[in-house]
């Protein structure tokens, strides 16, 4: 049978393969190559060795964006997962209206990043001015917490769904047995439920971590990096270097930043997967 299918590879694999090369493989290789070059358009490319990589830290916007992103990622990953897990616990108690609650909590996830950013910009600016504080665009700390609130609103529903599925798969006889042995509810929670849903924790932390680290749309629409690029995250910083700065050197630097950013994402993803996978247990 394998042989018979094999003859048909132009039908089965070729379309995806060609599109994949156009849409990913070639841009990726070309992009990596360009990070070692100085260019403004693709026609005037000069090899420049490692100079782009040295220039990344010439101004401190990239370092600032890195720390801003790192802090944002840590805070949002912890908050989103803890809150989503808490809500999932409440919604698996079998009370009335569970379905309606679940539907509502998940809803913000379907709204796109740009639209979300503007919704919260209007709301948060209204709140801030009602309390006599400066607007989002004038204070990077408010911008930071604004992004956190937005991220929670968007992501909690999604993670909650995954946690609910995980919690529903915890065998009830395990919990029954623990209860008969005299375990308290907090013991059941931390000694049985949490270890049993570790696969969901792996997935959810992975998703929130990478989503937060790669955040772009929400950053662009909520704060646009204001004031003076103080609330700019890494992805946006790269975009800004590419398209908002004039001067022949910036495109190369932007591409070099993108390569560094890509390496960050890979390292973080691998570390996280290794760390939480090691905590998973078998029933």
């Amino acid at each position: 049978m394998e042989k018979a299918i094999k003859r048909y590879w132009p039908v089965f694999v070729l379309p995806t393969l060609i599109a994949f090369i156009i849409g990913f493989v070639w841009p990726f290789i070309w992009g990596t190559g360009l990070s070692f070059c100085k260019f403004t358009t693709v026609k005037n490319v000069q090899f420049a060795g490692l100079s782009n990589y040295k220039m990344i830290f010439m101004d401190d916007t990239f370092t600032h964006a890195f720390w801003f992103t790192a802090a944002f990622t840590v805070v949002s990953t912890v908050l989103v997962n803890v809150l989503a897990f808490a809500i999932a616990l409440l919604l698996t108690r079998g009370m009335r209206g569970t379905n309606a609650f679940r539907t509502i909590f998940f809803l913000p996830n379907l709204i796109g990043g740009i639209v979300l950013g503007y919704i919260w910009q209007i709301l948060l600016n209204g709140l801030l001015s009602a309390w006599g504080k400066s607007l989002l665009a004038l204070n990077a700390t408010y911008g930071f917490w604004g992004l956190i609130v937005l991220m929670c609103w968007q992501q909690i529903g999604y993670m909650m769904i995954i946690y609910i599925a995980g919690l529903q798969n915890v065998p009830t006889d395990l919990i029954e047995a623990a209860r008969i042995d005299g375990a308290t509810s907090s013991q059941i929670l931390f000694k049985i439920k949490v270890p049993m849903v570790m696969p969901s924790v792996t997935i959810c932390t992975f998703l929130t971590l990478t989503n937060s680290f790669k955040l772009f749309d929400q950053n662009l629409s909520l704060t646009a990096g204001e004031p003076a690029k103080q609330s700019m995250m890494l992805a946006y910083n790269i975009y800004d270097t590419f398209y908002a700065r004039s001067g022949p050197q910036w495109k190369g630097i932007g591409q070099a930043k993108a390569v560094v950013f890509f390496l960050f994402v890979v390292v973080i993803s691998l570390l996280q997967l290794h760390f939480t996978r090691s905590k998973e247990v078998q029933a």
Partner: protein
Amino acid sequence: MGATKKDRRINAVLSVLLTILCIAWMYPVFMILMNSLKTERAITTTHAFELPNAETFVGLKNYIYGIQEMDFLSSFWYSLVITVSSVALILLCCSMCAWYITRVQGVLGKGMYYLCVFSMIVPFQMVMFTLAKTADTLKLNNPYNICIIYLGFGAGLAVFMFTGFVKSMPIAIEEAAMIDGCNPIQIFFKVVCPILKPTMISTAILETMWVWNDYLLPTLVLDIKTYRTIPMAIQYFRGSYGKVEMAPMMACIMITVLPVIVLYLLCQKYIIDGVVAGAVKG
């Protein structure tokens, strides 16, 4: 086990708390709806929380203005065309590809599989410049063929999900079909496709959520003066005028959000199951 009286009381209290939380959860959308019905003057930050009253209520004026001024209906059309064509193409090509690379052992299949997994963690910023240039060179820069770019960049997740499912499918049915005289294409469409249906729905939902809301890829690939998708149009409110016109912008946000909410309420079971399936595979 039966719920005790104490349990039931706790549940009642929790229900009330969750109801309050849910109302708060929905408030941002409600607020945009209210503000989209007010005059521009009544949306300044201090008045943003007021409900529309006789003085500030303008009916659907903002909606009409937003639709006409921003040519919002064509944005809607472009978003729809791009999403439908991209998702259809992704489903068809990636399911075929995934079936092939699971059933035929070889370097091509192995290589593609690992490349797809790899492509899922690469941030878009890494390829955005070169991808936009490639799309320009190949003339894949209008709403009617940008789906090829989406197929390329979205193939990772789809191939990964489909291969995960195909691996668990018994090969015996396909062998039986082959003995009965089906060629591989018939086997795929008559035997494999129906079994793949649940995964197709999950993948379709995840890819739709991505393509419909995607901002950066269409911005860089399409010509913003001729073709604007919905996220581009919303962002354009800020880019095009000196001062952002809040009221029409909120009207457009509502036009964007409402169909999504309606669609979600209609098929929420599929959407939620799709998310769970996608997460378990991922």
